[in-house]
């Protein structure tokens, strides 16, 4: 009995040794050099594998960073400047300053401003609703409210507001990975430059119809009246396809366009209440007759 065990141990041991030697030589022969910096950079990345950088995952992006001559065009929106700075330090390069972005919804069609004209009781999936018909309202461009973007968000930065029936983006959590932009079948979500204190000014409408039909479908639709274009001193506003667009990189947040908009389709978000400029003037005029 003992004899058998010894023979087994020795023979298997020899077999293992033999295999190990072969494997060693094979490993030497087919050795692939991998830059050790890839792992270092990977460790610095957020490991979200969200695809926001345009690569398949964080490792893919790390490889691209190591291979790249400069960091031009490469950016991890999730990690932002700190992560890119760290990666640059590891690789001895300079990370260019990239403006952080944030997602905004270019539709403000709440049930009050955009009356429902039909009821959709099919599958709660925006893609299907979009393929099927113009939607529950008369606006064939606006939000369908079935939450494809919310399901696409891997960072918990979106939720559906049951009152407005529109998705809400939580600025602090949004990493501008662009998953929601791809998920929306109506292309309603745009990544815009993130400003100080999360301030935003943008046209919350995507209706490309002419003024009349757009207004009939939704009270807060952009009717392409060009008033905002005329008032803007910085050439930040353009009109294309009956729709105004504010370039976030040119906009100086002067807020002159907002009172001009007759439908209120331009939104100002996270601004302090306006200084009561108008009211003082009114006071002055009311005071004068008394004098």
């Amino acid at each position, binding site marked *: 009995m003992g004899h058998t065990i010894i023979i087994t141990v020795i023979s298997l041991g020899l077999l293992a040794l033999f295999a190990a030697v072969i494997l060693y030589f094979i490993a030497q022969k087919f050795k692939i050099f991998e830059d050790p910096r890839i792992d270092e950079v990977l460790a610095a990345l957020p490991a979200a594998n969200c695809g926001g950088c345009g690569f398949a995952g964080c490792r893919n992006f790390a490889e691209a960073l190591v291979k790249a001559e400069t960091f031009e065009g490469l950016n991890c929106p999730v990690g932002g400047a700190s992560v890119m700075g760290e990666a640059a330090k590891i690789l001895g390069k300079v990370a260019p300053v990239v403006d952080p972005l944030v997602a905004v919804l270019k539709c403000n069609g709440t049930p009050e401003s955009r009356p429902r*004209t*039909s009821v959709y*009781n099919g*599958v709660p999936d925006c*893609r*299907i609703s979009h*393929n099927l*018909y*113009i939607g529950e309202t008369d606006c064939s461009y606006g939000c369908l409210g079935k939450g494809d973007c919310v399901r696409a968000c891997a960072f918990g930065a979106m939720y559906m507001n049951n009152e407005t029936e529109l998705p809400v983006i939580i600025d602090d959590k949004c990493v501008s990975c662009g998953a929601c932009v791809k998920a929306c079948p109506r292309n309603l979500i745009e990544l815009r430059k993130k400003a100080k204190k999360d301030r935003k000014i943008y046209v919350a409408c995507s209706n490309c119809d002419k003024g009349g039909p757009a207004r009939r479908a939704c009270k807060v639709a952009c009717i392409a009246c060009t008033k905002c274009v005329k008032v803007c001193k910085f050439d930040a506003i353009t009109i294309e396809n009956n729709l105004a667009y504010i370039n976030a990189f040119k906009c100086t947040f002067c807020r002159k366009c907002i009172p001009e908009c007759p439908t209120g389709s331009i939104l100002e978000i996270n601004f302090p209440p306006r200084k009561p400029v108008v009211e003082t003037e009114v006071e002055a005029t009311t005071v004068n007759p008394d004098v």
Partner: protein
Amino acid sequence: MKTFPVGGVHPPENKLTAAIAIQHLPLPASVAIPVSQHIGEPAAVIVNKGDRVKTGQMIAQSKGFVSSNIHSSVSGTVNKIDTVIDTTGFRQTAVFIDTEGDEWIETIDRSDETPVEVILSPEEIVKKCLESGIVGLGGATFPSHVKLTVPAGKRCDTLIINGAECEPYLTSDHRLMLEKGKEILIGTTILMKALKVSKAIIGIENNKTHAIDHLTRLSSEFQGITVYPLKVKYPQGAEKQLIKALINREVPSGRLPLDVNTIVHNVGTAFAVYEAVQKNKPLFERVVTITGKSLLKPGNYFVRTGTPVRSLIDAAGGLPEDTGKVVSGGPMMGKALPNIDVPVVKGTSGIVLIPRSESERMEIQPCIRCAKCVSACALNLEPYLLMTLSEKGEFERAERERITDCMECGSCSYTCPAGRPLLDYIRLGKSTVIKMARKRVSN
């Protein structure tokens, strides 16, 4: 008795209006005639606001080969050219006409005679179909002149006339066969002449025995036309299933009936072709079934295109209280309308009012792998798989699984005990795959 061998379902027939004769719907006060009532390029509007038009006058001209002319269905003044939500559920250009009297263009033969002899040559027949805006009236609305032009290198030896009407509720083809049997047979002869074939088969499901008897009796006067009864099974009216059932030829995946030397036309189309060729009447009215379990006076009507669905419902006794959905087409393949001001178009075979109790969807539950959808599919597809692939965005794989073969008959969704929205997702996948394929071709 003949039928197709693979798949199929047996939904309750509910042919409530089978015994009700076709009436003429009173002319509506105004019509909205969409410029795209067919597959292919929308027609180009050739009238202006304020123009006087007569019934049958062309108001939009076909653009390109796969397109169709549109004719005014009433006489009156063009009120505006604007957009309207049509039966597809999307907005598109339409010509709005206010009705004033009913003055037809002089070229239309309005006598009661039914001329049997076909004088026109095959080329002239095709031209006439193009001029008269004839499209397939079975529902797909494919321009008929395209189907009558056999491309070089292809050959056609059998014409099939589709009188299956396998959709539940609908009886427009059934009534047409009973009341306009002779005209349909003359239309068939015209189609045979245009395609230069000597054999035509009319396939009718045997829940329409009167129509089968009637057409069989009449067809003895016409050479080369035979009438075949078919076993009732949905979707027998689908082109490929009908060809398989009648002449046992299988159209390969991704190919057309012409690849097995066959052409299929609907009985409604045969009637429209008769009217165009023998009576010079363009296609501006068709038979529409208005039906529903709660409807007071369901019926079959000759309806002018552009008539709002609302007037059709009013003629049938008004919208019942418990209406859940108003469906254009049959309950299996039809589409629920977003509102009832949608105009009737060339492809509208019926309007079905479905009570709320029957229109609600089942709760979506997980797939239980019962494979009922696979058994129901008449095209040998795997609907459960195609749905999952579309849902997860695996469109390349869906393409390999032949998602584009799906004819959207809805048998899978109908049969699913777990209430899964199989067809909804397959349709999504199919449209995405078609877009992908187009992009590939253009690149």
